[in-house]
């Protein structure tokens, strides 16, 4: 394997990154976070492992927008393993390799065990948290993309719309300009980008 990461998800949406082994893993998660599609999203929603040994080949038909930026970053194969405890789903373990190729049976089995252990640990940590709060250990190590939600709040006021719609506008902008959602949000919060004057800027 070339790298790994863990995505936390709730309500079928990516909510944050718990950890990643390097910039490429972080990119794989960030692209899924921006676009809402990819192996981890599928693994989480479908509750089963998702393997794509040939991302540039067969992968292209599977995820229309996810594949190009990730292949450009040198990823050959991606794998998503759901974090599950019984019927409960918490997110997904993401693995990638810089060359195409399937997982060996042993690797596949190891990944399943790793995902199970990760899911148990997340629940054990959360079990000790005060009611309504995220466990300290999770809050400290997880990147919950807070800036994206701050930006959604700002855009909501700029456009006089709800925060959910504002988040959609942010994602659409990131997609249209081929930028990470996180960067677009940074610009909004730093007041380098406003959505209510966007049309003027585009003209």
């Amino acid at each position, binding site marked *: 394997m070339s790298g790994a990461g863990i995505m936390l998800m*709730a309500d079928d949406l990516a909510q944050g990154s718990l950890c990643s082994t390097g910039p490429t893993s972080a990119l794989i998660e960030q692209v899924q976070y921006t676009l809402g599609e990819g192996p981890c999203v599928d693994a989480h929603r479908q509750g089963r492992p998702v393997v794509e040994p040939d991302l540039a080949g067969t992968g292209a038909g599977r995820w229309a927008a996810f594949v190009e930026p990730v292949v450009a970053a040198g990823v050959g194969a991606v794998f998503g393993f759901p974090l599950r*405890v019984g019927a*409960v789903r918490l997110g997904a373990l993401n693995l990638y390799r810089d060359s195409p190729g399937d997982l060996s049976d042993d690797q596949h089995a190891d990944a399943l065990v790793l995902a199970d252990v990760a899911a148990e640990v997340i629940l054990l940590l959360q079990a000790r948290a005060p009611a309504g709060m*995220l466990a300290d250990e999770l809050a400290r190590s997880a990147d919950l993309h807070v800036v994206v939600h701050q930006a959604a709040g700002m855009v*909501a006021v700029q456009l006089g719309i*709800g*925060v959910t719609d504002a988040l959609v506008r942010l994602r659409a902008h990131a997609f249209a300009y081929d930028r990470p959602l996180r960067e677009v949000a940074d610009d909004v*919060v730093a007041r380098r980008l406003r959505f209510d004057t966007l049309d003027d800027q585009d003209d």
Partner: protein
Amino acid sequence: MARETMLARALVELADNLVSDFDVTELLTVLTDRCVDVLDVSAAGIMLASPAGDLRVMASSSEEMRLLELFEVQSQEGPCLDCYNTGEAVVNVDLGDDPRWPQFAQRATAAGFRSVHALPMRLRGAVLGALNMFNVDTGQVRPADMAAAQALADVATIAIIQHRAAAEAKLLNEQLSGALNTRIVIEQAKGMIAQRHGVDMETAFTALRDHARAHNLRLADLARDVTDGRQDLATPGHP
């Protein structure tokens, strides 16, 4: 079919049912049915202790009232209650020749049963309940058959433990999901206040927190009021 083959099939069938999201009552009902098939007993049931400690019937090989009443009465006295209290198996009890449970024995005899057995459902130190079996004759059950019955009771125990662990995991996941959402709503509210009042995120958060304290509100509830447009914090804190 040989008894060992039937037992093996029953165990495989039960293991197959132990997938995520299984229905525990259904599984336990299959188990009582297999007890009757495999072990040459006339009826079987599973009694579990409630959180308060009283025994309740969870599954039965038949829904006949005469049988259900026999489980019912054992919240007061009977082999299941003894088995649950001591953690020891109660086997080959001749109902016509045992003074321990007069009320239970009288009803069981009236229902046509002559002998009764109860096997503990144990996990390490704890006893969760008992597997109860009835026979219409007084013949002794072979030790090998009792071992097979205990194997079935052990599967039932695993099923119940898994079911409880899954329920606990579900609760924790709801808490985790709720906590994640709370974090998100607070960040969104910070963004709205920052935009509306032209302040930075830290000032926006201070304003939010101070308002919550001054009005004795939970931060999460206030943040949700802000994002839902019910509250705009007209006078934010100043840096």
